[in-house]
């Protein structure tokens, strides 16, 4: 999930266009892995500081732009078994399906619905996509507190018109993203608690702030693993239905 949310940052151009793209290519290169697994805890802090907590597992096969991912909720019991299959494409928006065990069927997430919130959290279905660095234009904006500030503009259909992202100069990790649409700032994502896992700097905590609703979602990642054996058939609709 953290990798997916990093994808929001892949964006920039103008005088420092080459530099900005090179920075992002380096970010992507340093994040490279053939697969990933983690267990996550999600806390949605809504109005009146009401907190809803859920847990899930996530598996990914492949890398930016052509990866496949399966997410499964495990806790609480009411949502256990609900799964999401994401198939990313280098040249177009991803395909996404939800598996709903209670009614025994999958449901395709329509492209028009990608901007809707992901099950009451503060990020959207589109935010779950992993987009390749080549799917954005970049612009270097300057340096702030030990980080480069870049502007990204999606080349293909997106709910966002542009975004700002901050990349730490010392380890090429994205620490913050601001996403904008025509009306203004929509989301702010902060990445915290970085650790190296198998040589990859990985944020252990991500906080998403929905500016319009003024609510927050905090994601915490456990049991993070990279480059573990995963097979293609485990990332299909059949596998999603089987709960593999």
């Amino acid at each position: 999930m953290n990798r997916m949310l990093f994808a929001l940052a892949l964006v920039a151009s103008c005088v420092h266009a080459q530099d900005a793209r090179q920075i992002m290519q380096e970010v992507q290169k340093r994040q490279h892995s053939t697969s990933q697994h983690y267990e996550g805890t999600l806390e949605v802090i809504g109005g009146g500081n009401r907190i809803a907590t859920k847990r899930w597992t996530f598996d990914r096969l492949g890398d930016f732009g052509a990866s496949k991912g399966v997410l499964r909720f495990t806790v609480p019991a009411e949502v256990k078994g609900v799964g999401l299959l994401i198939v990313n494409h280098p040249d177009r928006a991803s395909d996404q399906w939800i598996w709903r065990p209670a009614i025994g069927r999958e449901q395709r997430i329509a492209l028009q619905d990608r901007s809707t919130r992901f099950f009451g959290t503060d990020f959207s279905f589109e935010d779950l996509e992993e987009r390749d660095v080549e799917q954005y234009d970049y612009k270097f904006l300057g340096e702030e507190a030990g980080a480069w500030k870049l502007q990204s503009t999606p080349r293909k259909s997106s709910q966002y018109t542009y975004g700002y992202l901050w990349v730490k100069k010392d380890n090429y990790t994205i620490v913050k993203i601001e996403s904008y649409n025509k009306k203004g700032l929509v989301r702010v994502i902060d990445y915290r608690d970085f650790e190296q896992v198998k040589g990859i700097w990985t944020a252990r905590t991500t906080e998403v702030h929905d500016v319009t609703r003024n609510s927050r979602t905090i994601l915490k990642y456990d049991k993070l693993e990279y480059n573990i054996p995963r097979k293609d058939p485990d990332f299909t609709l059949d596998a999603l239905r089987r709960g593999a």
Partner: protein
Amino acid sequence: MMLLRLISWPYARKHRLRWMLTMAGIVLGVGVFVGMHTANQSVLAAFRETIDKVAGTTQLQITAGEPGFGEEVLEKVQSVPEVRAAAPVIEATVSTGQGNLLILGVDMLGDRSLRTYDLEGTDEAIDDPLVFLAQADSLIVTKTFAGRNGLQVNSRVPMRTMQGDLIFTVRGIMKPGGLASAFGGDLAIMDIYAAQKFFGRGRRFDRVDLALRDGVTLVAGAAKLRNLLGPGYEVSPPSSRGEQFEQTSRIYSLASNITSIFALFIGMFIIYNTFAIAVTQRRSEIGILRALGATRSQIRALFLTESAIAGSIGSGLGVLFGILMARAMASYIGNILTDVYGVAQRADGIQVDPVLIAGAWAMGIVTSLFAAVIPARAAAYVDPVKALQKGRNQALSEGESLLRRWAALDCAGMAVVAVVFSRSTVIFYAGFVLSGVAAVLLAPSLTLWLSRVLRPLLAVARPVEGTLAADSLIQSPRRTSGTVAALMLSLALVISLGGLARASYDSLADWMRIALNPDLFVTTAQSVTSRTFVFPASLGDGLRAIPGVDEVQLVRSVRVPVKGGPVMLVALDVGSVERRAKLPPVEGDAASMYRRTERGEAVLASENFVRLHGGKLGEVLEIAAPNGMLKLPIAGIVRDFSDQQGSLLISREAYIRAWNDDSVNVFRVYVKQGARDSDVRQRILDTFGKQQRLFVLTNKDVRDYVTRLTDQWFGLTYVQIAVAVLVAILGIVNALTVSITDRRRELGVLQAVGGLRRQIRHTVWMEAAAIGFIGLVLGLLLGAVELYYAIEISRRDLVGIDIGYAYPFRTALALAPVILIAAFLAAVGPSESAVRGSLVEALEYE
């Protein structure tokens, strides 16, 4: 104005009761008209309002008749660049302990682009959207429904689904207003994929709602979608669903309009009668006025103004009465339309249409004025000299009678000619009106003649009282004829509608005997017309395996657009139906038409479809289906009462191919010889009843249901008939009151010379009975004619079925005591007034 103050006002004050009765006629007439229209309009408005509120920001809706269409259509629509948002919808109405609940199955992920879900106690659309989606039992209900049923978040709601009896959980409560106020607030939201499962819809949607991108016009968007989807799909704004329902329920509106206008027409006779009497009574006054220089136009204007005032007050009160009546009737009518057409209605309040109210008020005044035209003219032409002569003013002059008789004969003759040339609708309806006019014109002469016939009979019964009563009628036919005409018209209405109802019941019974002959019917609801839930076809195999079951027929009934209107398509095993329940052919070769239909090469059309939609044997019908345009000839015309708008019988296989829908509404089950229906019914319930929503109705249950539906259908007509009769009875009270007043001196003299109170009473009672009897005789005769027109109107413009002429003798027999008792009751007040008045005042009268 001065004449009104000096002449009219004192007269009205003196004859307060009569004016009140006069106005009661117009109050009832206008009231019934306003009540029926307002109630009908309220039901339609509530339906349109529900559509509007449910539609949200939807600009276009894609439908394919009631069967809906497969899920793949949604992706096609969503891929159109002009479409900003498209969301699938399933609508279902389920019965709860507290009445009907409209369940809207939506995809909560995309639906919020079109509809706003404003929930209580949270800024979220749903408290936890993931739980809502993960748990198929999730429901969002409105605050109104929650309040009515004491529900809160996490409360349990039991529901009988195609998966059996389930408990649903309230996971959100919508604030009142907007979507939450649709269907009177009795609305719940369910995930659409859960709805598919629980309502047995397979992987189908009822429709897709969509909004277009900015800058795309409705016309351009609709054209693009039509090109993409083909002719089997309708692409239209949400409002067109309201229009379709209005089209479906057209017959009901038309029928109720006819009877309510009739009530107003009868009210007109009461007014006519009152003014005719007033002119007669005030002849001397008019004569004096004329002698003092009042012009004819002033006299005419005086009476017309009086009439306009009476009409204005009566209409105003009638409007108020109608609104009260509409309040009481709206939900009743809504339920009838739900049962008859299978389209859920919810009309809690009423929608008062100012145009209708103004129109009804104006109509009441115009009716009053129209009724007063002849008396006003008569008043204007009063000869001052003759006006002073007493005793002859209630009589009809020979010239006047002759003129009326000739006019009546002319009208009757033209009505007969109109029957010969009745192919033309205009000529037919002209004939209908002329027959009524002829009867009305003949009424005074016939009243006089019948009074003379009655005189010796009454004299035999009571020599003094009978003779006096008969003479009163003979000497004053003008006083009585209006009342008799009103009574005649209302009784003719009773006979014609009663006969129509009787003939309908008989035809229906014949049809039920043939078409509804299975021993058991396995349905998804107690109401046979409900099409909310559907069975999977596989249940048919399960039913066949039940011991004692001989044969199972699968029936799918859906309303689809044919010839520009919604028509019931009945898909069934035609071969099996031919063997078991062969409908008699009205046209076509009985041997081949079923075979061709079974092979999917043709359809069978019902008699009323052909009449109402203009089809004919051999005509190739174009039926738009999701898999393309079906072009099937009409192989035969049969008598089928499945639907008021007509029905088309098609082979089940052809239907499945064209609509990709193999679901079933009803399984018709034949029980093996020797097996008991009740045992087989119990076995079916034991085997499948707990697994899914299922009702097993016996043959009698279904017949009773159809009969009950028909009773409900005619129920409101009966109410209108009752009002018409009541108006006519008011006329009797009016006529008797006038008669008593006119003969006050005469009755006073009778008492003075030793006449007993009992005799006075009997005189009035016998006069009332004679009026009732004459009205009854004329009404029963005119009813015979009107029944012909009622059956023809029904055949041509209402249900399209030739139900055959049969005079309702039982109704006629039942009417006799009712009218005579009513006449007696109408006479009680006037007779008491006659005997209890001061003798001195009576002798001083006039």
